């Protein structure tokens, strides 16, 4: 079992609220993602047996949604919005800056498995651009100093 008791309990608790069990797929995927950091076939199988929906339907739904990584990622998943409003305020140069600082290219994970850097579409933070999301925390109005501080802090915690 990959999912721990807390996750299983949480999924079960959510499941019963819906008129139909199948509605619990996204909540279950979310719970699993929060615990594991990514999703995979084994997790789909486990969710399938918890909510009693065929595994294929779990996998079909899961792969539709891009928020859940389908492969292991670093402890901190840095997601830089590169959509229009952020791009107008330098998202691309922010990505380059992060690439340099972390010594990896976008799409990669640092060798110590602490950071993974990716770009994503609009995160609904357009008026606070440029911005990035690390795990489920937003960091907005980014400047070099802010980025440095954030990364230092996270490195310390890692």
């Amino acid at each position: 079992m990959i999912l721990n008791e807390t996750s299983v309990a949480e999924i079960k608790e959510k499941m019963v609220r819906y008129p139909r069990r199948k509605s619990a797929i996204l909540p279950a995927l979310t719970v699993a993602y929060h615990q594991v950091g990514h999703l995979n076939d084994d997790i789909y199988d486990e969710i399938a047996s918890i909510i009693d929906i065929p595994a294929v339907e779990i996998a079909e739904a899961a792969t539709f949604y891009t928020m859940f990584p389908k492969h292991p990622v670093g402890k901190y998943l840095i997601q830089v919005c590169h959509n229009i409003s952020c791009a107008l305020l330098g998202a691309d140069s922010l990505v380059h800056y992060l690439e340099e600082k972390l010594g990896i290219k976008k799409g990669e994970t640092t060798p110590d498995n602490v950071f993974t850097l990716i770009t994503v579409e609009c995160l609904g933070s357009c008026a606070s651009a440029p911005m990035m999301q690390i795990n489920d925390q937003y960091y907005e109005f980014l400047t070099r100093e802010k980025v440095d501080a954030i990364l230092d802090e996270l490195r310390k915690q890692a």
Partner: protein
Amino acid sequence: MSSADDNKVTLTIDGREVTVPRGMTVLEAAKSIGIEIPTFCWHPKLKPVGACRMCYVEIEKMPKLAVSCATEAMPGMVVHTDSDLVKQGRRAVLEFILLNHPLDCPTCDKGGECDLQDLTFAHGIDDSQFDFNKYRFIRDKKSTFDDYRLGPEIIRNQNRCILCYKCVRSNKEVFGEYDLGAFQRGNITEIDTGPGQQVDSIYSGNLVEICPVGALTNTDWRYNIRVWKTQKVNSICQYCADGCNLTLWKDRQKIYRATSRRNDAIDEGWICNRGRYGYQIANAEGRLTVPLIKRGERQENATWDEAIELIARRFKEIKDKKGGVCIGGLAYPGLDSASLYAFSKLFRTILNSNNVDFRIDYKMLPEEPGDLYTQITSRKFSIAGIENSDVVLVIGSNLINEHPITNLRVRKVVTQKGAKLYTLNPFATKSGDISTDEIIYRAGTVEALINGLCVSIVEQKLASDTVDASKLATRVEPNTVAQAAKISGVEADRIVGLAQALGEAKHITLITGELLSTSITRDAITAAIMNLALLCGMAENGQIGFLSKYANSKGAEKLGVMPLLSDSLIAEMKTLWGGYPEQKGLGADRMILSAKKEEIDALFVMGSDPMLCYPDGQFVREGIEKLDFLVVADLFETRTTQMADVVLPLSSIAEMSGDFVNLEGTVQHFDQAIKPLGQSMPGYDICNKIASALKEPLFESVARMQPDIMRLLLREENPEIQRELREVKTSVEQASGEYTVPLFVVDQAHHFAHLTERSKSLSAFCSEAHLELSPSMAEKLHAETGTLIRVESEVGKVILPVIISEHIDNDVAVVTRNFSANPVNDLQMRKQRVDYVRLTRVEEK
């Protein structure tokens, strides 16, 4: 406006006025007057999704092009299906689809029958404005194709896929299978199996047929032939009594594939893999092509003349010495009607014997005419009629395996029309997925359970007033719900709940299957079921289906290929033949028993393999060994042909024309696809040759005999249902001693009787017998999939690999019987109502 008109709408399509039922789509309305609108994602039996956008039409007063497949026809609509705008819209869709579609028509197996290819030509598209490299899905990084296996027979090429989703939709919506899905999204969406799965349900071949392009192809057809080189032949499936309509695709002497020939009354355009791949037995290796005669210990090639001469001589000797009663005949109920009829006629008019039977896998057959089971099974049943029911009750049938296509109709009424399904079985089956309550009774106690239901219906005052329910308590035993619950092991409240559902139902379809028909207490079960039917008013509002199993079981019944016939049928025979043997006939079981006692000296077996199929292998062997003379006609060497004095090569169904009567009683004709292989002959010709050699021909030509056959086949007995409740007192048989696990010998999902193991594609799904166990039973035995288990009964022993069933959840042993290497019938006892076995792990050395 009258209310009849309310249900109709009148609209104009391409200047023609058309009136159609309300609710119909514009696409169907156009179809109804012969206007074909091109489609990719639409399918007559699936809910429209409006995805491909090929079916655009222009509707006046609507601002945009409309998708006709998902637009309801409305009164006064003015539709144009061929305007410039429509054409432009469709061309654009085609251009979009073709962007990343490979140009590999010359090597694509769909070439020649591809909707995309056809429509591209029709729209005159020969040039794309797309000047990028095509996007490629490549599974196997070594090849430039995407030839990726989804299951035993399906190959996927994702690059050709146009994402109509018909495969995934039909798989879930119609077949209830969850092994295929669409993954990712947008233009990188991919059709694939579920995690760790493969596509191997018995419906999987339909996915290939429904695919409008060459994205899904099957291994039997791939790279073997081009469609335009083949000819189509109308055929009927021979692998169950559903009677699905098939098209065989052949070139010269070879059949290349089978596809559905949609018949809405029966199959609605779906066939199971047995029907789809079973044709392969015709061209399979190992077919018998010449007669064989046993000389000493060996069977040697012989000419037909030698063989017939020998048969005639030996039959005559035996008949002259001891009378025709010493000769018996067993015919396979999957034979064509003409062969079955000729077989019966040979015995009754030439050999003067009533010892004929087609019931090759029934335990202990009744010895008196007019047994209740036979009487009741002759009632009419309608597959399409299942759709009228609000409750479907399945008793004693693993429906999906026994009648895959009838099962789809049950699924349809349940999942699409909201009917309730109840299944009563000794072990859980796949139908449990959609049943309101899946009731598992202790093996051998179904009569008690049904009695309990009857009692509860009466107690809840839900009994139909067309029957005197007051007598029930004195006629049945057990006669309380509590007792029934105790005996059957089903909780009383579930019995009461089901009784209530049945009592309140407006229209019930009751289906029973093989687990009942082959039971020695089939008459008692039938009586119990008839009581239930009466109490629920099913005769008036519902239908009762004691479904027959083989492609022509129903025909065999109607043609009288049984020892004991009703008086009216005997009278019919007498008028046809001018005579009928006096002597009472013996059924299959009795024949073998008499052979054992040396009262029967000769047996003529046509098309069946009792050594493999008849319950109690030991018993059959002993009987057959005692025979003086055994003649067996079959397509392949079988356990039974090995023991024969004369073996005759039988033609397959594809090598003749003829008819089958399906489980509904519908007579369906099939055409000849190829010439008889080698010197093989259809059954009727064999019978005729023997008859001629003995006395006189049975017929001048099959065509001449056809009216007699049709007269019998179209005869309706449909006996009135007796209005009195019947006596059903049950005794309970207990497992004894060391043998405690109830055994069920059934067909494997992808196989049917003894023939399909010769089909390559079907063998790719499964090629050996298994022991199916519940997960908990497997755990008790420390067994995993593939673990070898010794299965022993009082009379026999086999060693089988385990399959852990997704469905079964009680302690039973389900064993599959279609493989000549594993005569699992050795485990069964012909006189025992429930067979019990002992299971032990075979320890590896």
